[in-house]
């Protein structure tokens, strides 16, 4: 008799109310001869408790550094039992970190870890570890056949380049190195000189790109260490390898060190669209930021397009604790985000309208005269006069006869030709090369006191400007007689900006464009102004991944500068996306660019530095190996032009091949043109699926050489300690792979310098390289790598020795009146270079998103304005009706706000009616480690460890978030599978319509779950960025495996999609203002300035968050496609609530 039946009988027998547990449980006594009088009081036999104490016990612990590209980096403690890593915990060592002067961080920094780090134990032993070196069959055959090529074009045989569809063979590492070296040597030789040039042209490469090789085949070899700061020797080593290839070039082309060319280097920070490209346009540096613990110094914290609590997880407490202590938190967002629930106020805007929103704030501040006049006059170019005829800023030498620009005398020096700037730790101020001296010319303001134009020098900022006694006019139109006697009209930047804002973006108009309620715009503007100097603008990746990102930066800086919230501990602008600022280790060139022709073999001898590499933006590759041209206009010129790509070596990077924007076009159309693709990985990623050579390398838990890293959001310098954990999978260090291929090149060429270049790797003394970097770095010079590693092994990092703690960008500029890295030395809100004037972006204007809009894409929104006079499409020689991917990018069309709102995106009539955006999520740092079972299970609402629905690609899966009303209108239920399509002209890849390419299209078209997500506005759809894409192998697995997993049966690659991916809809967009040859910026590694292209500082950024989509219902959400997803049927989902759920939501079960 079961117990329920017994109780029913007891009840009918009249027992009714049970008096005691003993009576109730009497029936069981025969099975349990133990009686516990009161289990609240005592329990008889507790020996069993040993069970959990045994589980908790461990044999030993060790420390390792977890460092995905999540911008944090955490020293973690691994617990080992029976030589197996059983669990991971934080070290609580951050509160013990000190600097060189004995200042110490507090334990408010502890604990540092996250869920993604704590599951690494399951990844360490996971079935996707790369267990050795693997070579693709077709590639192996190509090599064994002696690298045969098509006689006409020089192309490698297409049938041997079927990446993604081919299989792999395992090979001893030395053999793989030799194969790799032979391929590089063959490619370098074939593509050098005139024959190489002809082959590249025959293969259809743009002549400008071919010319950029300068005849060197080595230049077609591309290397990329993904987010190199995450391993200053291990990952930066990829670039060191590329620098070393100048040696190969010297053999191939028989040139000396003066003419030799190294490999081409791909960008990182800008490639990830983490670079805020408008920052250098305002202050000349890569990025303005503040360490996030500055939050508690702010009165007003504006969290803008930044999902702080999901992407800055270990630093989220600085925000919530600041709020606890009285900081007002306002969240500017495109949805009710995770961070929104930590806000005192939340303002929801239309995605990609951030520049308009910021300009709307500036309009209120200027109109109501709430700006900080002293700050504006002393630290910005807003008083600077602009000529209305040429739209160029007025220069003193144009106005004052015989004027000679004064030599820089405030924290700036001119570096004479032939001289070198001092080593970075000894640079005290901006280093201006003589060749750029002219750029830093004295400018002109209208002195309201004297009633005449006056010259202002580069260094006259802050107190230095106050001492001049000049009172510059901010408003008015002034007639200025030039030195040549002619008279021109000129107006201050402030005045031109004010006119644009007043006429185009008053609150009501801004509201119509941005969706933000007008009262919210006015209230926030006043709030910012009332907290002058104490407003922190924490700006995230959201708005940065739109095409108008530079305008967003310039506009937000304008708001901050107007209110003096720059350079203060609690008042500043910061951009937060990805990790960057490798130049915190400004001594890196002593390793990355050591001269390969004379490697220093003595540990502490002087190091000759010479960079032979050539940087380029990967966005041209992702766009299909093209540059930007339209009509007669070539937008991509000068240093921006990339070279053709023939060989690739990627380390620590899944973002270039697998998680690339425009993924399927890259793998199905572009990648087949490459001839050697090598990848270092410790986990078989989507990129490995498409590689020729995969080197299985150590995970962070198995590193056998120390390494070093840091973050832009916290003050720690962190060392990866070498660990005692044994290598279980036959892996090697990344460093061994460089040394291995270099040794093979030494064999091929007979030049031992290839081998010598990696001497301290083969000698197991990598700390020599690390110490060289430390000694050359302004922030850490004085540390000994041995001390740092010993501390790290105890879970303790060290502090960076920057000027302030928290490190606060522009603190010195504002507090010590030092110039920024701009031509005027001031924050600049006017760009007078020809490219900006041509683009209509000399003033900060609002452009619609390039794709994610319901309106005419990429148009400039403005009423007639004397300073907005862009080059029209017609002037460039193309029709303004050309609004495809290519035409849209350089299309300068001006619409009034009313005309904009009456216009239409060209794809709307075809049913592509929703914005599709792909932000980053809490349960993945990019793709790490979302396919680890526990993480997958928590990746949204569809996780199921038992996979009751065999359609599910894994124990969790990617999904599309839709506004429930949008979903209903499409006939889509919560939990259904849907097809999601982007621009049919060229996504998911160009040529998908060709029936011969049906197999590729089958893999590439996105199919995923749909979720009703009430936090997103109508017309805005979201999908997380972090999924592993479907590959030919995963699709084969999904369709052939009995378990239905989307898992490649040969490689174990596990996709997070049944078909397609979040990158099925995205493309790589190129913006003209990102490609100037005239912008002056600070160079990496020190205080030198440069002009034009600079990777990760001034180059294209891609706009990966932009796409319009069409959604079609594919399959029902119930298990196996039968009926509706179960939680919906139970009435527990948004907009499908049961009566009980409705009572619950209203708090109706408590009567009050």
């Amino acid at each position, binding site marked *: 008799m079961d117990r329920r039946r017994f109780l029913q009988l007891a009840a009918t027998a009249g027992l*009714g109310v049970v008096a005691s547990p003993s009576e109730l449980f009497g029936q069981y006594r025969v099975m349990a001869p133990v009686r516990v009088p009161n289990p609240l009081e005592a329990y008889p036999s507790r020996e069993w408790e040993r069970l959990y104490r045994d589980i908790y016990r461990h044999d030993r612990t060790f420390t390792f550094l977890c460092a995905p590209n999540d911008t944090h980096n955490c020293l973690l403690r691994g617990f080992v039992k029976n030589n197996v890593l059983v669990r991971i915990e934080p070290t609580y060592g951050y509160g013990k970190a000190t600097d060189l002067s004995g200042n110490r961080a507090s*334990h408010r920094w502890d*604990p540092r870890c996250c869920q993604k780090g704590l599951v690494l134990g399951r990844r360490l032993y996971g079935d996707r570890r790369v267990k050795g070196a693997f070579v693709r069959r077709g590639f192996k055959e190509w090599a064994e056949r002696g690298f045969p090529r098509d006689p006409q074009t020089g192309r490698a045989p297409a049938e041997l380049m079927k990446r993604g569809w081919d299989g792999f063979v395992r090979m001893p590492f030395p053999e793989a190195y030799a194969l790799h070296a032979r391929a590089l040597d063959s490619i370098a030789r074939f593509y050098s000189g005139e024959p190489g040039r002809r082959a590249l042209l025959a293969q259809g490469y743009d002549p400008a790109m071919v010319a950029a090789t300068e005849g060197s085949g080595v230049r077609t070899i591309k290397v990329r260490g993904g987010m190199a700061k995450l391993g200053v020797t291990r990952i930066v080593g990829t670039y060191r390898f590329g620098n070393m290839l100048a040696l190969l070039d010297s053999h191939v082309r028989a040139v000396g060190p003066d003419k030799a060319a190294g490999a081409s280097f791909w960008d990182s920070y800008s490639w990830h669209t983490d670079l805020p490209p408008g920052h250098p346009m305002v202050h000349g540096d890569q990025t303005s930021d503040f360490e996030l613990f500055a939050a508690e110094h702010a009165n007003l914290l504006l969290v803008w397009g930044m999902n702080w609590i999901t992407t800055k997880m270990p630093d989220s407490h600085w925000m919530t*604790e600041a709020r606890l202590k009285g900081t007002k938190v306002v969240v500017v967002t495109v949805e009710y985000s995770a961070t929104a629930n930590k806000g005192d106020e939340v303002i929801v805007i239309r995605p990609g309208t951030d520049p308009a929103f910021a300009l709307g704030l500036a309009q209120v501040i200027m109109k109501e005269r709430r700006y900080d006049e002293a700050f504006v006059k002393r630290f910005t170019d807003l008083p600077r006069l602009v000529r209305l005829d040429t739209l160029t800023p007025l220069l003193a030498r144009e106005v004052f006869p015989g004027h000679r620009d004064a030599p820089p005398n405030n924290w700036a020096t001119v570096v004479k030709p032939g001289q070198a700037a001092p080593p970075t730790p000894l640079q005290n101020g901006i280093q201006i090369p003589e060749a750029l001296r002219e750029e830093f010319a004295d400018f002109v303001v209208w002195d309201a006191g004297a009633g005449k134009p006056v010259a202002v020098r580069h260094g006259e900022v802050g107190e230095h400007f106050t001492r001049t006694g000049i009172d510059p006019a901010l408003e008015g139109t002034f007639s200025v007689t030039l030195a040549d006697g002619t008279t021109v009209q000129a107006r201050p930047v402030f005045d031109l900006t004010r006119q644009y804002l007043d006429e185009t973006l008053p609150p009501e108009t801004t509201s119509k464009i941005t969706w933000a309620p007008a009262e919210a715009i006015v209230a926030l503007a006043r709030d910012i102004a009332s907290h002058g100097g104490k407003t922190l603008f924490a700006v995230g990746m959201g708005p940065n991944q739109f095409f108008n990102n530079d305008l967003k930066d310039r506009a937000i800086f304008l708001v901050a500068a107007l209110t003096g919230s720059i350079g203060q501990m609690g008042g500043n602008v910061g951009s937060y996306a990805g990790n960057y600022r490798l130049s915190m280790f400004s001594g890196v060139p002593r390793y990355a660019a050591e001269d390969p022709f004379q490697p220093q073999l003595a540990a502490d001898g002087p190091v000759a530095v010479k960079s032979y590499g050539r940087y380029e933006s990967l966005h041209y590759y992702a766009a299909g190996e093209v540059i930007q041209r339209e009509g007669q206009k070539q937008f991509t010129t000068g240093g921006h032009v990339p070279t053709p790509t023939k060989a690739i070596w990627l380390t620590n990077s899944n973002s270039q091949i697998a998680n690339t924007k425009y993924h399927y076009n890259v793998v199905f159309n572009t990648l087949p043109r490459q001839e050697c693709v090598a990848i270092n990985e410790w986990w078989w990623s989507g990129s490995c699926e498409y590689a020729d050579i995969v080197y299985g390398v150590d995970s962070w838990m198995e590193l056998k050489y120390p390494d070093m890293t840091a973050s832009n959001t916290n003050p720690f310098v962190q060392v990866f300690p070498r660990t005692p954990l044994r290598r279980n999978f036959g892996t090697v260090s990344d460093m061994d792979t460089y040394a291995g291929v270099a040794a093979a090149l030494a064999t091929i060429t007979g030049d031992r310098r290839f081998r010598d270049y990696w001497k301290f790797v083969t000698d197991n003394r990598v700390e020599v390289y690390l110490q060289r970097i430390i000694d050359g770095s302004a922030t850490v010079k004085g540390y000994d790598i041995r001390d740092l590693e010993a501390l790290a092994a105890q879970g303790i990092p060290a502090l960076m020795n920057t000027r302030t703690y928290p490190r606060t960008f522009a603190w010195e500029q504002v507090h010590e009146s030092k110039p920024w890295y701009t031509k005027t030395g001031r924050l600049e809100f006017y760009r007078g270079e020809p490219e900006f004037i041509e683009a209509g972006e000399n003033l900060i204007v609002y452009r619609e998103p390039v794709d994610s809009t319901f309106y005419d894409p990429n148009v400039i929104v403005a009423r007639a304005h004397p300073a907005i006079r862009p080059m029209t499409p017609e002037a460039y020689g193309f029709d303004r009706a050309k609004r495809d991917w290519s035409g849209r990018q350089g299309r300068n069309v001006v619409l009034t706000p009313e005309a904009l709102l009456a216009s239409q995106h060209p794809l709307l009539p075809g049913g592509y009616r929703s914005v599709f955006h792909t932000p980053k999520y809490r349960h993945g740092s990019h793709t790490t480690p979302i396919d680890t079972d526990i993480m997958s299970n928590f990746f949204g609402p569809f996780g199921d460890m038992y996979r009751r629905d065999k359609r599910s690609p894994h124990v969790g899966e990617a999904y599309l978030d839709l506004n429930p009303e949008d979903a209903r209108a499409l006939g889509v239920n919560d939990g259904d599978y849907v097809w999601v399509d982007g621009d049919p002209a060229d996504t998911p890849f160009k040529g998908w319509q060709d029936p011969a390419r049906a197999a590729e299209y089958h893999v590439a078209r996105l199919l995923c779950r749909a979720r009703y997500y009430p936090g997103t506005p109508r017309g805005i759809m979201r999908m997380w960025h972090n999924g592993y894409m479907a590959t030919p192998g995963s699709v084969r697995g999904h369709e052939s495996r009995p378990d239905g997993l989307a898992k490649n049966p040969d490689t174990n690659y596990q996709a997070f999609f049944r078909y397609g991916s979040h990158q099925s809809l995205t493309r790589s967009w190129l913006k003209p203002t990102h490609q100037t040859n005239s912008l002056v910026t600070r160079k990496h590694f020190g205080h030198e300035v440069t002009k034009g292209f600079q990777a990760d500082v001034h180059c294209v950024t891609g706009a990966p968050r932009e796409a319009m989509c069409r959604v079609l219902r594919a399959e029902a959400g119930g298990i196996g496609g039968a009926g509706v997803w179960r939680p919906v049927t139970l009435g527990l989902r948004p907009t499908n609530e049961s009566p009980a759920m409705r009572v619950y939501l209203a708090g109706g079960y408590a009567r009050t």
Partner: protein
Amino acid sequence: MPKVYNWQLGREMDFPYEATRPERQFAMIFDTNKCIACQTCTVACKTTWTPGRGQEYMFWNNVETKPYGYYPLGWDVKILEKLGVQAMDDPVYQGKTLFDAAPAGEMILGYLPEDVDYAHPNIGEDDSTGLMSQGAHLTLPHMQWMFYLPRICNHCTYAACLSACPRQSIYKRKEDGIVLLDQSRCRGYRECVRACPYKKVYFNAQTRVSEKCIGCYPAVEGGRQTQCTTSCIGKIRIQGFLNAPDRVNPENPLDYLVFVRKLALPLYPQFGLEPNTYYIPPVHVPPAYLRQMFGWGVEAAIATYRQAAEDRTLLGALTLFGATPEIAHYFRVDGDWVYGYDAKQAEIVRVPLKEPVVIRELYDIKHKAYRTNIT
């Protein structure tokens, strides 16, 4: 049936065993205003205690987004619906507890979830109430809202699981109040699973016995806080011990926040279990919903939290969260710092209420380097 005093309800209630309080009660406080739903706690717990066969679906610790998140599916909606609308308009609870509402022949009102109810542990993540319009300006309390609710076993004073176990294999430890399920005696009848309204006991189909959160007693016995607490990067948790309500010590941070300041409130106190995990309510959520969840005193707790900036002792107690892996038995605020002490009054940690600012010399003479912020 014996009458026991439930301080959270301000009244006596029926419970099958005589009341006897442990020497000290394992307890935890969560500041929901700081929880980021990262699930680091969940993974810390999972990798330490339940990584094995039969435990795949099992999360002794979980974080769910309220109001649409639940693990298992709909757990609180279901039990609230069964219990019905109850009066909660007085500091002394006038409604029925789950013991009061037990059907004839049952110890407590409960239900047994279906296996599939555990399938989607993160359902509802970030789902808010309402429907977002095209553009919005939300102010406090948010007109459209969600928040994160982390949960472990409540180690209840009047534990339902314990009361319902026919084998009497669940007990409360006298020394620390941790409620344990004897793995060697349990026979997997799942009466505890049915009885626990929080659904924090799980059946293991592999071992055929039930399991639950053990309050990390192997750590706690050594003076360390639980795995979910020491891994909490939101620094939302503090775990320690609560004294009996008649022996409150204001120097104990948990006593101070629960009894003295009444800032941290129990989860669904109306169930009558006197649960021992306490929640600082989210300040942005409408009070009607919060009162249903945390009972009497929600508005006062929110007001207290909003004034913490001017209250150094309170701020100090809250700054102690996540500052140390050890259990803080006592705390003291002195100047700009808060200090935590162990059971023997020895200092275990000190942290500043505000992280001090450091301005370094521009030129470091000793190491010959300019220490700029930009480099």
